[in-house]
Each structure stands twice: as structure tokens, then as C-alpha cells.
């Protein structure tokens, strides 16, 4: 019984410790990476952002059209299929 408790306490200490250490390292690595990227890719930062938001948001009329068309076709197909 006491052994189980000891195991549990150890698991807590090392587990929680490892999680914190790992995520701290991840913070450091991530910040360093972002710093490098921002430093060596100063101009591209703006472009990719635009490129990214457009397809992601589906804001352009092209994307909306695609969505509408997809839906229509989808419905049409799922109705006529019998298996």
C-alpha cells in the first residue's frame, strides 16, 4: 500500500516536472524559431499571412462559390444513389 503511494507520489513529481520542463523547452525553441523566421524572412511574413487567411476563411467569392457548388452536387448525388 505504502509502496503504491510512493509510486504515485513519484509519478506526480516526475511527471509534472517533466511536463513543465518539456513545455518550457518548447517555449524556448519556439521563440528562437520565431525569432529566426522573423529575422530572415522579414518581407514574406506579410505575404503568407494574406495567402493563408484567404483559403482558410473562405472569404473570397471564389471559395464561397465552391462551397455552394459542393453542397449542391453533394445533395444531388446522395439523393440519386441507391447502392
Amino acid at each position, binding site marked *: 500500500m505504502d509502496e503504491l503511494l510512493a509510486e*504515485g507520489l513519484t509519478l506526480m513529481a516526475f511527471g*509534472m516536472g*517533466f511536463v513543465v520542463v518539456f513545455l518550457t523547452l518548447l517555449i524556448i*525553441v*519556439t521563440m528562437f524559431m520565431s525569432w529566426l523566421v522573423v529575422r530572415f524572412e522579414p518581407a514574406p511574413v506579410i505575404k503568407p499571412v494574406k495567402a493563408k487567411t484567404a483559403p482558410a476563411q473562405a472569404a473570397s467569392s471564389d471559395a464561397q462559390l465552391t462551397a455552394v457548388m459542393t453542397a449542391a452536387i453533394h445533395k444531388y448525388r446522395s439523393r440519386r444513389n441507391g447502392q
Partner: protein
Amino acid sequence: MDNLLEIWLASGAYNLKAGQLVMIIVGLFLLYLAIKKKFEPLLLLPIGFGGILANIPQAGLALSAVENAIYMGGPQFLTELSSLLGVASGAVTELTEAYRGAEPSLKSAATLLAQDAGYNHGMLYTFYSVTVASGAAPLIIFMGVGAMTDFGPLLANPRTLWLGAAAQFGIFATVLGAIGMTMLGIVDFSIQDAAAIGIIGGADGPTAIYVATVLAPHLLGAIAVSAYAYMALVPMVQPPIMRLLTTQRERQIKMSQLRPVSKTEKILFPVLLMMLVGMLLPDAAPLLGMFCFGNLMRECGVVDRLSDTAQNALINIVTIFLGLSIGSQLVASKFLDIQTLGIMVLGIVAFAIGTASGVIMAKIMNVLMGGNAINPLIGSAGVSAVPMAARVSNKLGLEANSQNFLLMHAMGPNVAGVIGSAIAAGVMIKFVG
């Protein structure tokens, strides 16, 4: 008339045992929660239905060929199986237990024996073998989750990773809780059981299923149901705790707008995370490897068709079979136990402690960084339960100040919580697996 009698003697109604009836009612209740209460229906609906199917008497859908042969087979088969498994008596329960505890090579021999006698795996057992026992299903779902995850808010403010770390305290506190219950003699959990139960506090379905499969497969049903049910309860569990631990002033803190994150950063992040996991904790590599792969497919921009499939057709197919398979574990002998009650109690405690730890960590960070940089309400999002926990943070933020939009800020700790609990899972598998 013989035929009528035969059909009645073989019917579900005649053979229904009390435990099966209760489990069918549990299955119906899960369907109710899924459909009417909208509790994580994508998983709870298949789990509930699978639970009902698994408890139909005589159908043996959730049983292996050997178990079906034990229940239905003639004396000759039972004698042969007894001698194979080295069991003195040919009693059904004893044989079943001996089979379940047997080594793979012995199980394999017993299966051939049962198949020679004309018995086959039940449908749900087959699904379970392919999806869960192989370990594949939770990993494939985690890949899909990775392909749905946007690390942008996290990259814009990486310090929120600490919130995702702190909230994992719920996991380890729950492990202690499970041990405490055992020491009090209420239940009897091994350290593996305790670890698998604790991970419910990670508020992350696939991670909980994966850990339970590795450490405590006999608790899989209860753990999966508990994990998904409590995730659905996040909007009820978290707010009182968050209000208790924060002042009105803290809740009104407005956070500065997140900086834009470049595509390159988003591409590099999953690769770096993968490398770090590989170098520091190989036991978390399957889970986080698939997660990072999914995210890389999403962000790289050159394999959109694979990313789409991972987020839709593939994850949906796997979810259907994973849900039914988990449901197949909802059998009376495993589920109707004081342990399940213990797991239910511990699960909600885990969520509560995780929530509190996240909020407190946010307050500590505010103190350490000497300012008002972080609204403590986003700390609770560190438990994961994406995206519900983040929405709860947002809602409470708006309550305090109708112009205080915290959603994007809370998404950082929210996805950090996914990473955090996967790391915690790796540690547990490493130490007690």
C-alpha cells in the same frame, strides 16, 4: 412446437441477465446524452449504440471466438480448452478468466481450437481488434485532430504553453486520488489503472483512449465514457471554479492583440515539436508523431487533398468503428463495478483540479511578469477540451466586460493542453507501462 420453444429459449428476452439489462439502459442513457444533450455525440452515439449491441444476450457480438465457444460449445470443446489452458475444472467463468489472462501464443492456439469447433469472433470484437487492440484508431484520430488544429494563437504567444502545462496537474492529482481510494479500501486500482484514470483529466479523448489501451484495457469503457462525458460538461464544471479563483478586476483584463504568425513558423512548429519529443520522450512519439504529421499536412499547403481526407473521410470512418469498439467494452462484468463509480468521481475531480491549476498558473505568471499581460480566465483552457474550454473562457470574459474577446487568446493554452496531456501520457507509459 419444438421450433417455437427453441426460438424462445435462444431469444434475447429469455436469456437476458440483470447486468445486461442495466448495461442496455446505460447504452440508452448515453444515446440520450448524445442526441438530446449533445454531449460529444460523435463518440458517445457510437459508444452507446455499441454498448446496446454488446449486451444483446446470445448474440455474442462483443465476444471473441473462444468466449463464444465457451458459452455455446459442447463438452468436448470445453475439455480440450481446459487442458490447453491448464484449468482443472471446466467452469465457464474460470475458463473465461484463464483465457483472458493467457499469453498471446496460448490465446492464438485457443482461437484456432474454437474456430475448429465452428465458432467465430463477434462483429464488435473484430472491430475492436482492428481499431483499438492494434492501437491504430486513436492515433489516426489524433492525426486528424492535428490536421484540424491551428497553432497560430500559440505561436503568437508561446508562454501560454505554461498554462497548458499547469492544467495537467489535474492528471497527476487524480492519480493520487485513485491511489487514495485504493488505500481507503473503496476500490482496488493498480498504479497502471490509476495512471490511466488520471489521464481523463487531460480532457483529450484520443489520448485517454490510447493510454487506457496500453495501461488498463479492462477500464477502457469506463475511462472513454467518463472522458467524453466530462468534456461535454466543461461549460458547467469550469465557470464556478473560474469565478471562485478570480476577481472581477482580473476577469476584465484585456489582452493585447496577437501578432500575425507567418506560414513558415506554422510549418516549422510541428517539425520542431516532433524532434523535441523524439529526443526527450520517445514513448510519446506515436501520439505526438501522428498529431504533428497531421498538423504539418495542414500547414505545409502542398498536400491539401491528404489534409482534407485526414480531417474528414478518414477520421469519420475511424470514429465510427472506434466508437462501436469502445461500446463493445460496456459489458456488465467490466462496467457494473464500484470501480466505474470511482472513475466517474475521479474524472470530475480531475477536470476541476486541472481547471483550477490553469487559472492559478495564469495568476502566478501575471505576478512573475509583473503586469496584467494575461487574463486568468484563459488559464482554464489549458485542460484542452478543444474548443469548448476556450469558448468558456471567452464567455466569462464577455460577462465581465462586453468588449473583452478572449477566444483567440484562449486557443493558445487550449492547444497547449493537447500537447501537455500527450506528454503526460508518454511519461506514464514510460514509468508504469
